[in-house]
């Protein structure tokens, strides 16, 4: 049973990572910096519990806030560019974060042992959960409460004007500016929210694996972060969740019996999925609560989007 709970933990943590990219993607920005924010969250939260003995909850909230603050600061220069330039700029930022932690050594003594990040050796013994008597299922429930809160908040945000504004900016920046939206504010806002969610996710991640090191937070993880919402579709938060289940549950865990063919199939299936469903598994339009409730009437037909340019 613990195996399934453990799997659910991975799903939860990756959902947070995916959602952090989802918020930014709504504004049409592909950010490869999410792994960097995730790393900041992981190291911050790890430091809070392992080095300073904080409770896990304030630790991950602080991790989220620190990541959000840095995302906000980085957002201003990075979002001056867009498209491929932004992909590369954010990728560079993510790598800078990783290399920062590669070079960071800062340990404090607690109970005769040294705790803290130790450069290339990584940050060991982030064992808040086992040391405080949390069973695997406790941890799983805790993670999913956090995930549920974040998903609910994003779902709710999508109902508000803020959500519509994000989507409007994502669809057509020129038009969005012409109706008086402050692009910088909207994009930096999305980046900050994404940073916060990635920070939460990273903070939890650090505690589920007990040891983190710079190598984890590389380009591959950043790619996964954007892969979840793109694969799932930008229609709603559930697209991201579905994509996490598809990648982590099916492609990684479900195909494990295939040995090393699994890794080959992994990439091939992603290629196939994007060819068959280019708008993501759940599509790109936000399902309207009304049309879901009004099951009798057919939902408004979502035709192929016309190229607005």
């Amino acid at each position, binding site marked *: 049973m613990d195996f399934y709970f453990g799997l659910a933990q991975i799903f939860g943590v990756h959902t947070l990572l995916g959602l952090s990219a989802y918020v930014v993607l709504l504004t049409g920005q592909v950010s490869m910096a999410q792994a960097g924010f995730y790393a900041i969250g992981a190291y911050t939260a790890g430091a809070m519990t392992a080095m300073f003995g904080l409770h896990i909850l304030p630790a991950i909230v602080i991790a989220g806030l620190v990541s959000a603050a840095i995302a906000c600061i980085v957002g201003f220069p990075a979002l001056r560019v867009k498209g491929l330039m932004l992909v590369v700029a954010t990728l560079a930022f993510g790598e800078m974060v990783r290399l920062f932690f590669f070079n960071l050594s800062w340990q404090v003594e607690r109970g005769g042992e040294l705790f803290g990040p130790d450069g290339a050796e990584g940050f060991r013994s982030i064992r808040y959960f086992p040391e405080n008597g949390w069973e695997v299922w406790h941890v799983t429930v805790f993670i999913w409460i956090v995930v549920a809160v974040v998903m609910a908040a994003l779902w709710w945000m999508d109902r508000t004007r803020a959500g519509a504004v994000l989507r409007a900016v994502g669809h057509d920046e020129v038009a969005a500016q012409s109706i008086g939206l402050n692009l910088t504010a909207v994009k930096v806002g999305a980046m900050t929210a994404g940073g916060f969610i990635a920070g939460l996710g990273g903070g939890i991640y650090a505690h589920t694996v007990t040891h983190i090191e710079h190598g984890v937070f590389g380009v591959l993880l950043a790619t996964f972060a954007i892969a979840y919402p793109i694969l799932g579709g930008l229609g709603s938060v559930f697209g991201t969740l579905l994509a996490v289940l598809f990648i982590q549950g099916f492609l990684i865990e479900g195909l494990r019996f295939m040995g090393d063919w699994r890794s080959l199939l992994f990439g091939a299936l992603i290629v196939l999925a994007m060819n068959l469903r280019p708008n993501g598994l759940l599509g790109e*339009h936000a399902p309207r609560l009304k049309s879901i409730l009004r099951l009798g009437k057919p939902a408004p037909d979502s035709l192929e989007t016309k190229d607005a340019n």
Partner: protein
Amino acid sequence: MLTLQSLSKHFGGVRAVDDISLTIKEGEIFGLIGPNGSGKSTTINLITGLYAPTTGTVTLDGYDLTAMAQHERTAMGVARTFQNIRLFGNLTVAQNLWVAQNGHEQRRAHFLPRWFKAGGEHGPDIEELLKFSRLHSKRDVQASALSFGEMRRLEMARALASNPRVLLLDEPAAGASQEDGQLLAERIRDVRDRGVTVLLIEHMMELVMGISDSIGVLNFGRKIAEGSPAEIQANQDVRAAYLGSKHKDEDLIHA
């Protein structure tokens, strides 16, 4: 009310707009005409801030807009439509109006609550605008699924949703039929009657001559004439400018 003062925009060696000065009075419909490539769209882009002018200023009611960002100009009361319609195809009709509700009156009052208020797409203003644009039955339809005419109407409604003082219409009749042109003229008058000043850029001469209170004519980036429709029709320079490119223009209108 809206004043352009020796406005110029150079792209490399090309003078797209060259030393244009115009004044648009409150409550009028001002038509801006000129052959293709005469700098009409560039002028609009300079007014809304999509481009920064090489020289010159744009002022609205005495406030200098030149250094302002686009969204700040919208907050001051400048709104526009696009020659090639630019709607938020991923949002519904009502949401398109909702996101545009940025107008200067509500702006500062309650910033955060307005951003995070759900269901605002059903507010009284939006209902009224939907009725005004005859889009009420389509309120929950994805904007990308509308017909061409509906898209035009929605785009104008969206511009109005930001509660503008001056509305810039960039060739609203492009692609429209003769009859649609009639309806459009009425609509523009209705907009003016709401108290919004209109700057109209158009190829369709009939439309412009029929509804404009004053008209400015551009050619090769320069203003060659300004005056009432009757004056413009009588102007030799304007005739010369248009005769040179008449066929081309007509082709475009009927395309």
